[in-house]
């Protein structure tokens, strides 16, 4: 009896679409776009949500049809991209650097489909020269170091301390880019300041360990740090918690994280994932899509710092004016921002 019920339930469930694949697959009258989210999917208040915003805007303004897939863990990512490519999407987007290898593979298998990868990490050959992605693959990259430079300069100007903090998630070149820019920004306005830079770990777990984030932050605050910039995913939630507990300041990353600890978030270094995704979709729709490496820096508003009614009282007008000057200088090329730790002064 029980077995029969289970079997029946199983058969019924076979006809139910898996979660995340609820939108109709293809709209024959529109340009079809497929997006595969990073782990976490929608509601991560960061990357995936920003990508969704961009796609939503494209649906409204450009009339394209977007289908989303939220993979579970690991290997589902490649399967998600493959499903979308096989269904005949014009453009398939992968959100997150973790898609890099899968995108390379699929772009070769489906030469007539366009692909885009947010935070795609460009490989280098043995001589250190970048290997260009396949011709139908656009790498959407951000100059995180430029935004980090600005928040570093801001932290040094309002920190009232010679020590500034940085907490990274997984110790990796991508996160070191944030650190390099931040430290350079600190030293630009305060050459004798010291940046205490720490990482939560060396595995992807380090991006979701708020317990360690809080302990790292508490230790830094105890050493006299007043402002900490985190680039550590949900590990950073612990940094905000420590900021609340010790009544100090922290700087958010990727999205505006003001709401995580109102009054304790000095600013956030925001990445314009939405704008990049919208831009890629628009190119496909206009027929001007080309593979290659696209970088979004301060000049393209691809990275920026938050300055609004929530944090205006934490940032004096003179500081804001100086920050805007630095921003203009970076865009004009008068300030060179390092993107690796080795190049940092």
């Amino acid at each position, binding site marked *: 009896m029980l077995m029969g019920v289970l079997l029946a339930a199983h058969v019924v469930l076979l006809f139910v679409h898996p979660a995340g694949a609820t939108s109709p697959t293809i709209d024959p009258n529109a340009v079809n776009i497929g997006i595969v989210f990073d782990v*976490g999917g929608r509601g991560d208040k960061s990357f995936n949500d920003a990508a969704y915003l961009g796609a939503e805007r494209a649906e409204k303004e450009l009339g394209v049809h977007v289908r989303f897939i939220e993979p579970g863990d690991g290997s589902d990512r490649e399967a998600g991209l493959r499903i979308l490519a096989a269904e005949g999407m014009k453009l398939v987007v992968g959100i997150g650097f973790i898609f890099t290898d899968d995108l390379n593979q699929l772009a070769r298998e489906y030469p007539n489909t366009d692909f885009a990868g947010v935070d795609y990490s460009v490989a280098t050959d043995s001589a250190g020269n970048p290997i260009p992605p396949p011709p139908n693959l656009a790498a959407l990259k951000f100059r995180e170091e430029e935004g980090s430079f600005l928040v570093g300069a801001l932290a040094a100007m309002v920190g009232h301390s010679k020590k500034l903090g940085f907490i990274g998630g997984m110790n990796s070149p991508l996160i070191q880019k944030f650190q390099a820019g931040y430290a350079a920004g600190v030293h630009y306005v305060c050459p004798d300041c010291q940046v205490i830079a720490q990482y939560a*770990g*060396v595995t992807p777990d380090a991006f*979701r360990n*708020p*317990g*360690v984030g809080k*302990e790292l932050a508490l230790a830094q605050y105890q050493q006299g740090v007043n402002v900490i910039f985190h680039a550590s995913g*949900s590990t950073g939630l612990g940094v905000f918690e420590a900021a609340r507990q010790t009544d100090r300041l922290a700087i958010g990353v990727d999205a505006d994280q003001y709401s995580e600890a109102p009054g304790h978030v000095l600013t956030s270094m925001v990445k314009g994932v939405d704008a990049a995704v919208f831009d890629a979709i628009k190119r496909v729709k206009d027929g001007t899509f080309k593979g290659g490496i696209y970088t979004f820096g301060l000049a393209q508003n691809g990275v920026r710092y938050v300055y609004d009614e929530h944090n205006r009282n934490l940032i004096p007008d003179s500081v804001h004016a100086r920050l805007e000057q630095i921003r203009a200088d970076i865009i004009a090329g008068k300030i060179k921002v390092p993107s690796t730790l080795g190049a940092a002064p």
Partner: protein
Amino acid sequence: MIFLALVAQTVRISMPYLFASAGGVLSERSGLIGLGLEGYMLAGAFTAALGSYYGQNPWVGVIAGVGGGMALALLYALCSIRYKADQVVVGVAINLLAVGATRFFLRLVFRSSSNSPRVPGFSVVETGTGFLALAHNPLIWMGALSIPAVAWLLYRTPFGLRVRAVGEHPGAALSVGVPVPKVQWIAVALSGALAGLGGAYLALDQHQFSDQMTAGRGFIALAAVIFGRWDPVRVGFACLLFAAAETMEIRLQGTSQIPGQFVQMIPYLLTIVALAGVVGRAVPPAALGKSGD
């Protein structure tokens, strides 16, 4: 001042380990592998956040955390005691289930895949060494007491004697009238409750649940159980040792020559050393992991 701060930090970091490994000792001494500790803890962290959110009171969260950890432990007991499934396989499945289920309910209840809203906790604003905040958190006291409590239960009560008998030789225990499965069910349920408290500590300390926030602490607790040779007191010291190593890593990171990777290896390295019998022999309960009769 700095020394006190280091001690306070070590105590905070050790809390989830103490709770979970206290539970692990109970479970393993009754013959059931504590592989699901990570899962119990994660489930407990989620239900604690849920309880504290809806009850607007951290104590509701504590009770809910106990319930969440216990619920998953009972599922483990059902599979491995009642249906005699392979404990390792079930344990792995429990951990995977916890990740998936908490993520599912996180999205269902709070419409987010990353974290819950802020919930009430026990923490107070404090800028000193951190001892004030420690003293104000009842979960710290409970965590400190969890190991002595389990030691007392195992060595000073009839139930503890039965647990040990069942873990060493269930056949002999059965022959003198000990209800073996019942003792195991209770031991596993208690281990889930304790690990759930560890999860509640994590969630309430952060004032929220975030996806996979236990980040392997259950496995470190299990390593502490083995390194402590299944003896509660030694296990307690193992937890403190692992926590102290983490504290040192946090304080010395970037300034010392010891790479962080090495410090993160320490718990596992010591466990292997203990298992290999380099420092005294680690003898597990004789019937550990043997589901069949």
